[in-house]
């Protein structure tokens, strides 16, 4: 049984009618289905407006889906009461892109990491302090810096604080929404290594949302490509990168700048008329699906 199963997920955003315009309804996520196996890193890629971030938030109900189902360990997440949802969030965490705006600047690092434990009423004070110190070590932060404020840390260190906070409740599933794209290039690799180490050590399952296809290719076991609210292609990462089937996937992969001045460049430009918007996903080869 997959750990997370998403089927026919839909999220509409409505724009109210104004004085001079009619109301509109936009499907940010339009009939999206996928599942994530325990222990894997599932990549969700797409460009801005593709619906990848909204999809991630729907799984945690940070955004309420319009329809569809999300199950976690076989349980219907969208049917959870508020109380049950709070409990479930202990097991499902999210790490955001921007380590500059996602940490409260008035809180010390130790308080930021401890807060989820307090909210969930876990442990006595001394136990919580020990746990915070342990988490600091786990993400490679210096315990001497526990009392510092976010601005006293570099971007990479702040992202480690965000990770420590997300890990505080011992989740099994983490949504990583562009976790390294705001970081300096020389620091990105450190955080990517940390994510891979933590996954192995804590048996985590990741939903990795990203636009950096080079990174997705490196760390994701399976990848889904979103385009205009739909998954247009999904499969084992190696197969998808080696033989992309959907015109959009082909255009996307060919647009990645290659860090090799001698690499042949064969840009595939997306011809919108080549996309059959009504095509459903069909299996091209084992586990490799494309809407063609």
């Amino acid at each position, binding site marked *: 049984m997959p750990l997370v199963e998403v089927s026919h997920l839909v999220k509409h955003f409505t724009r109210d009618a104004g004085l001079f315009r009619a109301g509109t309804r936009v499907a940010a996520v339009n009939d999206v289905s996928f599942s994530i196996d325990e222990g894997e890193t599932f990549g969700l890629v797409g*460009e*801005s407006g593709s619906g990848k971030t909204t999809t991630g938030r729907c799984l945690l109900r940070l955004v309420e889906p319009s329809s569809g189902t999300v199950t976690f360990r076989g349980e219907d997440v969208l049917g959870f009461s508020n109380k049950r949802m709070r409990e479930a969030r202990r097991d499902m965490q999210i790490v955001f892109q921007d380590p500059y705006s996602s940490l409260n600047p008035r809180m010390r690092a130790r308080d930021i990491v401890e807060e989820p434990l307090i909210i969930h009423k876990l442990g006595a004070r001394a136990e919580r302090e020990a746990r915070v110190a342990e988490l600091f070590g786990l993400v490679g932060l210096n315990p001497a810096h526990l009392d510092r404020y976010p601005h006293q840390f*570099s*971007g*990479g*260190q702040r992202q480690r604080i965000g990770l420590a906070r997300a890990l505080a409740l011992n989740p099994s599933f983490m949504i990583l929404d562009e976790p390294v794209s705001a970081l*300096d*290039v*020389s*620091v*990105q*690799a*450190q955080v*990517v*290594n940390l994510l*891979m*180490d933590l996954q192995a050590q804590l048996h985590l399952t990741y939903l990795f949302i990203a*636009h*950096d*296809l*080079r*990174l997705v*290719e*490196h*760390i994701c076991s399976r990848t889904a490509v979103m385009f205009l609210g739909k998954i247009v292609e999904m499969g084992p*990462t*190696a197969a998808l990168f080696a033989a992309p089937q959907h015109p959009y996937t082909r*255009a*996307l992969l*060919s*647009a*990645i*700048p*290659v*860090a*090799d*001045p*001698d*690499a042949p*460049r064969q*840009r595939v*430009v*997306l011809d919108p008329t080549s996309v059959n918007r009504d095509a459903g996903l069909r299996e091209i080869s084992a586990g490799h699906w494309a809407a063609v």
Partner: protein
Amino acid sequence: MAEGALLSIEHLTTVFDTSKGSVAAVDDISFEIRSGETLGVVGESGSGKSVTALSIMRLVQPPGRIAAGRIMFKDRDLLTLDERAMQRVRGAEIGLIFQEPMTALNPVFRVGDQIAETLLVHGRATRREARANAIELLRAVRITNPESRIDDYPHQLSGGMRQRVLIAMAIACQPALVIADEPTTALDVTIQAEILDLLRDMKAALGLSLLLITHDLGVIAETADRVAVMYAGRIVETGPVREIFRSPAHPYTRGLLASMPGGRPGQRLRAIEGSVPMLGDLPPGCAFNPRCPDRFEPCTTAPPPDYPAGVAHSARCYLHAAR
């Protein structure tokens, strides 16, 4: 100034005055751009790459100031020009493209008028000609339906189209040099590819030189003829693009290239340890030394001078001192 150089930066230092003293955001850098070439400047936050661009345009705002150096452009030192003369250089002889097209365009004016403004200010067109020229420029940057797009406001355009408008403005007066500061960073990868193609084609068609500033080594590899790598306000390595990627000479450049995703999937990446230093708090000697895997005794004593590291290739690193 060397033969064939369009722009020659000599010992440029730009400092920011803070309550704790002045901090050099750009520290004694020298480089040149030849006619028709693309120089890629690559660096991370705080490397000084954007301050370099602003210094060339003399757009550094207080508390920042240019403290020393010469900026030779077509045999004139831009730092000696009065403000009026400098205004004639900006936009007319040197075009500038910023990262964020939404903030670089004025939201309350139609894009056509903004392009026309550039032409009018520099006396390149009469009011009547300016509109027709603006349409031609939009066509040149491959905006479809330029005759109707010219009357759009910036918010009516996509990010990619806004960046095309900025490129149109930058090339409107047929400058000899265009400075593009992270021109594709805010864009999606497919749009980035289109903009990079456009910049390359414009450069070839107009015979201009391009100073392309980016943090993305992939963009550098695809666009630049020569590369300058900046770290903590200094240029640590310069060379032809192939040399930089095939045989990087500075441990920082090597580290950047090695840390990129690639190789066997799932394998740990070869990260550079530590983080980018704060400008006010640089380590003694080479600024990269605390993170450097090849550090040895002289690295902590004094900043290394520029050593030759190949043909037209040099690095500020003591590893090359013996050559």
